[in-house]
């Protein structure tokens, strides 16, 4: 039972443009959401988070939006850079972290 879903396995974006990564969840009890970034042969690294009481959190080029009514989370990266090329996982927290399947982002120079 996949409670957190990332329906796009991959995304390609030109350098300088916006990257939008999407995540859907099924459990309305989730109270905390996170995005992790993963390079090959490395563990995931924390990127940005948002509490369920907020609808937006911004950190530099990264902004996470939360739409609780739609049970939808998105990560915006503006402007995208080649170093952003990685796999991005969204995660939702309740009693534990539930991870999505990941979206592989490629930023084309």
């Amino acid at each position, binding site marked *: 039972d996949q409670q957190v879903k990332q329906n796009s396995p991959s995304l390609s974006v030109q350098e300088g443009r916006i990257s939008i990564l999407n995540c859907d969840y099924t459990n309305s009890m989730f109270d905390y959401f996170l995005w992790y970034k993963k390079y090959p042969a490395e563990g995931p690294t*924390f990127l940005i988070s948002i509490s369920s009481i907020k609808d937006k959190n911004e950190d530099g080029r990264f902004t996470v939006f939360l739409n609780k009514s739609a049970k939808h989370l998105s990560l915006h990266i503006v402007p995208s850079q080649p170093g952003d090329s990685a796999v991005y996982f969204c995660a939702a927290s309740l009693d534990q972290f539930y991870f999505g399947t990941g979206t592989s982002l490629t930023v084309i120079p």
Partner: protein
Amino acid sequence: EAGVAQSPRYKIIEKRQSVAFWCNPISGHATLYWYQQILGQGPKLLIQFQNNGVVDDSQLPKDRFSAERLKGVDSTLKIQPAKLEDSAVYLCASSLVSDTDTQYFGPGTRLTVL
């Protein structure tokens, strides 16, 4: 600050053999997690420790998997005997206290079972 350390980085074994993975969390982190990440999937929690006590092991296949964190610091995860479907990356993570704190991941151990 040193990150989460894991060893070995890679392991290849034959089915029915045993294997053990080691994790050293970030100093001062009370909570330690072991995740299994199968190719093309997100990490799945196997077991969570708070200090040296088990908080959640509901998804650990206890007939073949075991884990311990004896002194509340390092942890080992063992598989005995291994099956083909155990081929995955095993990630260790740690956080300061609770499961809502940010988790910091190690580089993982890639296990291949032949």
